[in-house]
């Protein structure tokens, strides 16, 4: 999960709003109670690049080497880096489910309610739309699928370094949490004064890869070579190349223009240089495009409500979105209405709560609650903020109430219901198996259930087992299959212990996994037991004696048949049979195997299916 730096001065200023409610020393505990994972409280230094990007660095990180936005290398161009001073920050683990609280504005709103400074639903005024966006039906088709858009106009905008950084961070966090790295939603913010905001409707349409040219963000408009086609952007622009996979399967690309055809952006890839937001910007146009209206609406609501908290002077103006199917007005801050059963909430949390008490808890979490008829009211009518992306069911309101109530104020107790426990039989048999081996002086090892064909088969000259489960996307060449035998792991353990006293007697009791078309998921586990002995005088007779003892104690009868097995010395291997089927094998390892493992003493091994041995024993 990404970690974000929440500027504490700004946060506390917004929460306290002139009063003294909370200071820095109380932040850690409060965040903990709010369910926010605080990594640390730290001091960061802020740096500005000449591209207006602001970079926050902790003491440990030191000065930045390059600008993540424009790519400028500060080692070569130290003149482009400007220190902005120190910040106290709370380093927070960003939670995907609550993107509405990972900007100072949203977090301040949550904390204010939680601490009781200002509870209930916050309402943000929205001016009626003057602008419209016309959505081309092509966007809903397979060749260019990014059908949804939500927009807003921001007036009376005043930006400084801190606010630009805030805007960027909020965009980035939303791209991660809601947008799945721009796939589901991507956000653009533009200088409206560089566009024709009074003329015909803006257009959200799809264009052919070579249909037109525009100067993407980061390129100089003065440079004639900087004017690129959408295809050029995907193959030549840094950001374009990084996100090209999002458009890879389409033949036409989304494009947002004003009524005169000036390009705002090519979602979800890049904005145009012409519409870039600077500190001089006074009016903005904001768009979120994506694959579902719900997602783009939420992203827009979170962005706007967060900005409005930090910039109270901001005026939000709606935009008409003209879909072929009809008109939508965004942003839409209408809260969702939910009914919450008081008793269910109290029972779920496990405390006595009446309607007014529950209502007070929910108001502290930022919900609007219709005043309940009285303590005996059985349900509450709740208005859920339009920037909450995680409230899908009344149970989500119950969690909010529980957090407001305080987990540390709950009295832990047990359910009063009596139940009878029961172990699994194979686990009990495994306990017996381990007891036998330890009684014989063996030490148990536990080895990884993941292995590779190299370590499991090739190393020992054993043919590949077609029943091995194969991983489609292994993370390392050492773990590509599930084990079908415990022995390679046990022998490897001997190998890592060759400098220690001999003899060494090891065993493992564990599951092996086999692809099996008859199994529901196409594979099944089987419990195995394996043992290995190494020493100057170790031989077949020793492991045979162990096998005999094991079978005797498990109340099973083992039959030994001479067999020729790869990996074993010819004439010193036997297959094990019980209940009429082969259940395992034992013998002395071939010197080639010992060489492969780097072992310098004789090794005798045994492996059998514990499950089959037990079945045979029961059958007896």
């Amino acid at each position, binding site marked *: 999960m990404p970690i974000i730096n929440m500027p504490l001065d700004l946060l506390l200023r917004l929460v306290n709003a002139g009063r003294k409610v909370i200071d820095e020393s109380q932040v850690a505990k409060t965040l903990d109670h709010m369910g926010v994972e605080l990594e640390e409280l730290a001091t960061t230094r802020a740096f500005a690049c000449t591209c207006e990007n602001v970079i926050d660095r902790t003491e440990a990180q030191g000065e930045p080497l390059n600008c993540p936005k424009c790519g400028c290398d500060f080692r070569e161009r130290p003149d482009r880096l400007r220190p902005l001073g120190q910040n106290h920050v709370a380093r927070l683990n960003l939670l995907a489910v609550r993107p509405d609280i990972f900007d100072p504005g949203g977090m301040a709103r949550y904390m204010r309610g939680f601490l009781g400074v200002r509870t209930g639903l916050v309402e943000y005024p929205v001016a009626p739309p003057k602008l419209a966006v016309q959505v081309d039906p092509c966007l809903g088709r397979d060749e260019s699928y990014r059908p949804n858009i939500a927009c807003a106009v921001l007036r009376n905008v005043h930006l400084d370094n801190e606010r630009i950084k805030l805007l960027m961070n909020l965009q980035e966090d939303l791209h991660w949490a809601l947008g799945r790295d721009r796939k589901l939603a991507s956000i653009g913010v533009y200088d409206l004064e560089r566009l024709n905001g009074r003329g015909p409707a803006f257009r959200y349409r799809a264009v052919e890869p070579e249909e037109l040219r525009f100067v993407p963000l980061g390129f100089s408009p003065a440079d004639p070579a900087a004017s690129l086609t959408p295809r050029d952007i995907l193959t030549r622009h840094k950001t374009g190349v990084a996100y090209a996979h999002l458009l890879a399967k389409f033949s036409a690309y989304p494009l947002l223009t004003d009524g005169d055809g000036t390009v705002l952006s090519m979602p979800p890839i890049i904005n145009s240089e012409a519409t870039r937001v600077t500190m001089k910007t006074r009016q903005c146009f904001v768009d979120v495009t994506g694959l579902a209206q719900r997602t783009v609406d939420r992203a827009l609501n979170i962005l706007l409500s967060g900005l409005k908290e930090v910039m109270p002077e901001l005026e939000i103006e709606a935009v008409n979105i003209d879909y072929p199917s009809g008109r939508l007005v965004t942003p839409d801050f209408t809260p969702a209405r939910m009914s919450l059963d008081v008793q269910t909430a109290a029972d*779920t949390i496990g405390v006595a709560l009446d309607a007014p008490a529950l209502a007070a808890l929910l108001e502290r979490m930022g919900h609007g609650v219709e005043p309940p008829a009285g303590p005996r009211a059985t349900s509450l009518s709740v208005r859920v903020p339009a920037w909450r992306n995680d409230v899908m*069911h009344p149970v989500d309101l119950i*969690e909010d109430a529980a957090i407001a109530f305080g987990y540390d104020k709950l009295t832990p107790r*047990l359910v009063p219901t009596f139940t009878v426990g*029961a172990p699994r039989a194979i686990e009990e048999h495994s306990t017996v198996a381990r007891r036998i081996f330890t009684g014989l002086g063996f030490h*148990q*090892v536990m080895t990884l259930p993941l292995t590779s064909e190299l370590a499991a088969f090739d190393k020992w000259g054993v043919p590949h087992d077609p029943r091995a*489960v194969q991983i489609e996307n292994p993370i390392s060449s050492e773990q590509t299959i599930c084990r079908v035998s415990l022995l390679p792991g046990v022998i490897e353990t001997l190998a890592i212990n060759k400098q220690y006293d001999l003899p060494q007697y090891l065993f493992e009791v564990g599951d092996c996994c086999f*692809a099996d078309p008859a199994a529901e*998921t196409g594979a099944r586990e089987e419990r195995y037991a394996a043992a290995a002995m190494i020493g100057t005088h170790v031989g077949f007779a020793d492991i045979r004696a162990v096998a005999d003892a094991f079978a005797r104690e498990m109340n099973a009868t083992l039959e030994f048949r001479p067999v020729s097995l790869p990996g074993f010395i010819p004439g010193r291997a036997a297959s094990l049979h019980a209940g009429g089927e082969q259940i395992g094998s034992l013998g002395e390892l071939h010197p080639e195997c010992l060489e492969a493992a780097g072992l310098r003493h004789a090794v005798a091994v045994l492996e059998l299916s514990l499950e089959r041995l037990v079945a045979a024993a029961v059958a007896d």
Partner: protein
Amino acid sequence: MHLPEMQFNVLRAVANAGTSELTELARALAADQSPVAAACLALQDAGYLSVRESEFDEFRLGPDAEPFAAAPLPERVIVGVLKAAGGRCRITDIPSHCPLNAGQVGQSLRLLAQRGWARKEADTLVLLDGFSEAAQPDEALIRALAGGRVARREQLAAQGVDVAAAAELLKPRKGFLVVKGRTDRRAELTDAGRALLAAGVSARRSVTQLTPDLLADGGWRQVELQPYDVTLAARTLYPGKEHAFQRTLEKVRRVFLEMGFTEIVSPWVESSFWDFDALFQPQDHPARDMQDTFYVARPARTQLPDDQLVERIRRTHEDGGDTGSTGWRYRWSREMAHKPVLRTHTTAATIRALAAHARPTAARPLAPSAPSPGKYFVIGPVYRRETVDYKHLPVFHQVDGIVVDPHASLATLLGTLAAFYGKMGFPKVRFRPSFFPYTEPSAEVFLYLEHRQEWVEMGGSGIFRPEVTLPLGIRDRVLAWGLGLERLAMMIHNLKSIGDLYFATMPWLREAPLSRA
């Protein structure tokens, strides 16, 4: 009166010889010194002997002195040369008149000056009047100890050697004289010893091993069972052992069985359906990425449960179905649900158990809408696409548990987990609000480690969302948790790296104490 054989022999020998030195006593008894010394000590403890100890020095020649037992010291040779040369000689000329080389001559100059025999004047050595032909004490000592003789101070003095002067003279010459401090032990009969001998005493054989023969014929009655030094260290033994992690897993298992839970299992290779979809994880959830989850190429496809259940899950994802939820509002793909993964959590097992719990059985013939309460737990490996480091492996163990109960609440969830960790030996447990996709409310569990004085996160817990339980036909609330076990085991067994569990060394396997689980 009986005495052990050796003690009897010693007592009698001392009585016959009067005062006896212990080495001589051993020689006289034709026995090793240590049993003789032990017998003397025992007799002294019993009051029959007194052993007097006195320190003495023992002298013998070092390896460098031996040649001079027969030949004169270099100083003596140089004096001869000087005398022949009329009392003085250039130092550089001396080697040409004697067997000494220039180095030996040089080394002798200081010694000659010390004795007052010769003095160096510029490049010439001059014979002095102090020179004496008489053998000096060091020369006398060398001669007295010739041939490897070992002698005490008083023996040498008796021969007329001034030992102190000789030792002083030889001090600058390394490897000439070896002096060792020794102890003289002399045993003497006490009055009690004399009385014992007068009263009559006989020997009894002393044995170390109590043999079957001694037991069979009662011979043990006639022998002395030799006492041992019971404080001595013995050789190191290790019993065969269950692996330390196994012991922790067993303890976890036992605790849940004690708390009335039924043990369950689920396959390692799991369908995306049970691993994710049944837990209301949307199909585009990042946890389902190839980045984080191991997908399985063989087998290529899993079966799905009955169509009715699959349909209920589909509707729950898409629009909430009958659960009262909004759902995720996307088009759910049945094909994705077929895709096999290595299970990413043991919650796959508890969710299967929950589905089975809702189905009436012969043992539980209740209507599916009102199944009886139930408690289930599972312990097993889970798989995540993690890069290996000291605290991560692509496989680790979890314990997942669920409680289906009309009394299930956040308070009883915290109580159940606190009871579990209390039984595991961690009485201080704390819960923090958290967010998980399939539980609501959710809590993270922290344990307080006394020795590290810090809280450590152990895993997640919560109450299953209605979107999870209702499609399965479960109407009661269900408490659920998934807790990591490697971290717990590393805390219990004081391990620094998770790899220590899976790539174990013999010393650790042998030494990790069984009492620790």
